């Protein structure tokens, strides 16, 4: 219940809360993209030859592709030759303990509320913090190591566990999958790697914080999660970015592989800088997230709370290949001012008796546009496949838009696919009712919106739920009245 109070406190503030810039020297690549830049990045990361070759093949494929235009968003053309594709905080020796981490960097994390000491002591969350492109500190590694769990930066995984990376990278999102995944494959700077061995239940929530920090630097993160037979992991990703005037491109790739009876829960709170109230600046967030339920009885669950970015374009998806496998997608997407979001999911039913569940809650305010785009595909051999989709939109004011684009493609006559959609407005009656009990209009909106999104918020791990509730309220400040 105290969560509500925190919301109320937060509501009295109105600027983008995480808008500051920390002064850490960065070592950057020159602007633009060509094979030499790809080689430069690979060399910086001291990668083996096969990794460079993989990047180069992705780059060459990318050259043959055109930027997609089918999504329901508009933005100025991106000049890929004007982007810095690699920036790493200068730090010569990798720290062995938290004490060795650059104090300035640690101060930045503390401003973000990520106190390592506290996290270590109290929450049991292992944090692999990413500032710009290089992982700077990893905690709890030894504890996880005892269970055979690998949780490290992507670069480290390439060095220390090349056989695993080689086996799984691109296995869920192939190099040639789409324009932005090809771009990411060519220039990804770092990210997280997570491996849960057979039969192991990861005892803590794994968490990574991403943060864009250097001027004009694209962020190309890559995450790979592999859950072996009968294993379980809950993975949290959250991010905040400092205030910027220029648009920044963020094109991440997340791949999840789940073997027989494995379960992966992936939760995101996304709060990239959304641009100013006038629609200036903000992050372009073009992400490819996909999970493969490879083995029978496996399960992948995506939960996302999207409040940030000027333009969001993302569809965390599940390929339900194994029989009896389960895919879930829970989403809250908030757009305000001039934000645009085109987000949803794909559930591809291949195996028998596969099940999927989609719960999408879109909230639009200001002059924003919020689209749900979802595909449910049931292949011929997917007997007994079931899908349930629910897409609800909530409008604040009369200058915003909510759109729903469901694609349903069923090839098996025994499949059951359900789709429900609603659109509602926050009613003046509801606001007045709250006012009459002493609740101010902005707080009433926060209350109603959090109620609307509750079904999804309930899916989040506790520590994220609190942050996410606050975010919803902050994102919608000034949208009514």
């Amino acid at each position, binding site marked *: 219940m105290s969560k509500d109070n925190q919301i109320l406190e937060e509501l009295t503030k109105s600027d983008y809360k995480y808008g500051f810039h920390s002064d850490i020297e960065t070592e950057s690549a020159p602007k633009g993209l060509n094979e030499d830049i790809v080689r430069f990045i690979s060399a910086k990361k001291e990668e083996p030859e096969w990794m460079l070759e993989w990047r180069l093949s992705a780059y060459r494929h990318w050259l043959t592709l055109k930027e997609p235009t089918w999504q329901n968003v508009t933005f100025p053309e991106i000049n890929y030759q004007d982007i810095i594709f690699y920036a790493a905080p200068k730090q010569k020796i990798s720290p062995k303990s938290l004490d060795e981490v650059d104090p300035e960097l640690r101060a930045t994390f503390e401003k973000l509320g990520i106190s390592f000491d506290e996290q270590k002591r109290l929450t049991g969350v292992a944090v692999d913090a990413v500032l710009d492109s290089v992982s700077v500190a990893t905690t709890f590694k030894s504890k996880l190591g005892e269970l055979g769990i690998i949780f490290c930066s992507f670069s480290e995984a390439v060095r220390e566990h090349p056989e695993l990376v080689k086996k799984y990278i691109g296995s869920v999102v192939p190099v040639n999958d789409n324009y932005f995944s090809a771009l990411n494959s060519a220039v990804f700077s770092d990210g997280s790697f997570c491996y849960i061995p057979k039969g192991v239940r990861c005892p803590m929530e794994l968490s990574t914080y991403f943060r864009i920090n250097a001027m004009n630097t694209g962020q190309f993160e890559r995450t790979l999660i592999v859950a072996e037979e009968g294993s379980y992991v809950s993975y949290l990703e959250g991010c905040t970015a400092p205030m910027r005037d220029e648009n920044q491109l963020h094109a991440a790739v997340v791949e999840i592989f789940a073997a027989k009876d494995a379960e992966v829960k992936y939760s995101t709170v996304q709060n990239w800088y959304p641009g100013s109230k006038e629609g200036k600046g903000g992050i372009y967030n073009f992400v490819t997230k996909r999970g493969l339920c490879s083995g029978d009885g496996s399960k992948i669950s995506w939960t996302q709370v999207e409040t940030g970015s000027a333009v969001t374009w993302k569809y965390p998806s599940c390929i339900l290949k194994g029989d009896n496998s389960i895919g879930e997608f829970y989403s809250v997407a908030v757009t305000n001012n001039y934000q645009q979001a085109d987000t949803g999911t794909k559930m591809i039913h291949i195996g028998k008796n596969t099940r999927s569940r989609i719960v999408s809650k879109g909230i639009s305010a200001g002059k924003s546009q919020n689209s749900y785009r979802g595909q449910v595909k049931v292949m011929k051999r997917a007997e007994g496949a079931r899908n349930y989709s629910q897409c609800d939109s909530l409008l604040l004011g009369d200058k915003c838009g909510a759109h729903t684009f469901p694609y349903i493609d069923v090839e098996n006559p025994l499949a059951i696919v359900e789709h429900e959609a609603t659109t509602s407005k926050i009613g003046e009656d509801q606001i007045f009712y709250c006012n009459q009990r002493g609740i101010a209009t902005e707080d009433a909106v926060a209350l109603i919106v959090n*109620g609307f999104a*509750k079904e999804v918020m309930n899916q989040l791990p506790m520590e994220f739920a609190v942050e996410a509730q606050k975010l919803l309220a902050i994102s919608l400040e000034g949208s009514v009245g």
Partner: protein
Amino acid sequence: MLKIKNLKASVEGKMILNGINLEVKPGEVHAIMGPNGSGKSTLASVLAGREDYQIEGGEVEYIGKDLLDLSPEERAREGVFLAFQYPVEIPGVSTTNFLKAALNQVREHHGKPALDAVSFLKLMKEKMALVEIDQALLSRSLNEGFSGGEKKRNEIFQMAMLEPKLAILDETDSGLDIDALRIVANGVNKLKTRDNATILITHYQRLLDYIVPDFVHVLHKGRIIKSGDKSLALQLEEKGYDWIKEEADTVSA
């Protein structure tokens, strides 16, 4: 406590209140009765500060303040409570969470700290007994899927929690069976003190068997055309509204 002087209000250009005069003192219960369309609910809405209504004239003084100058939430925080005729549904928000937000904003307004969860729960249990309301109901989404009786009982429960100075009950008796009516009325009676006042807006005298008013006013065409004590309500029950209407129309003609 409340002084309404020549209050006039319209909605969408149509005059509804044509000069209301009413004074309510602490400890008093006033019943406002009248046929459909006489302006009863409009009066309640105007006092609570609903924006759909345009004030065309007059003034309202409430505990020494200009009520019409306050926002709806300020009125609420100063102790004006409206039990809605049609309480709205707020999906996903439990009565408990809703009231916690409301109560703490009211407390903040009066410079009091927010109630911690334990004290809040204690207060809730105490007030739940007053209106014989089940805790399970309070955990459900506010008014969503509630029966008519549950909604009204929930309104009175909120009133108990917020302890208003001036409670306006807008047709709280409508849609209640006799048992629910008794429970609701009991709740209202128990909440009565020497310092607070109640305005009951009702169509039927039935409610007044349970909550005995000090004054009964008859509203017709946006004016109070007759005031009296509780016996007036009984007369209305017996003879209907026509005789008073005729009386009033004759006088004004």
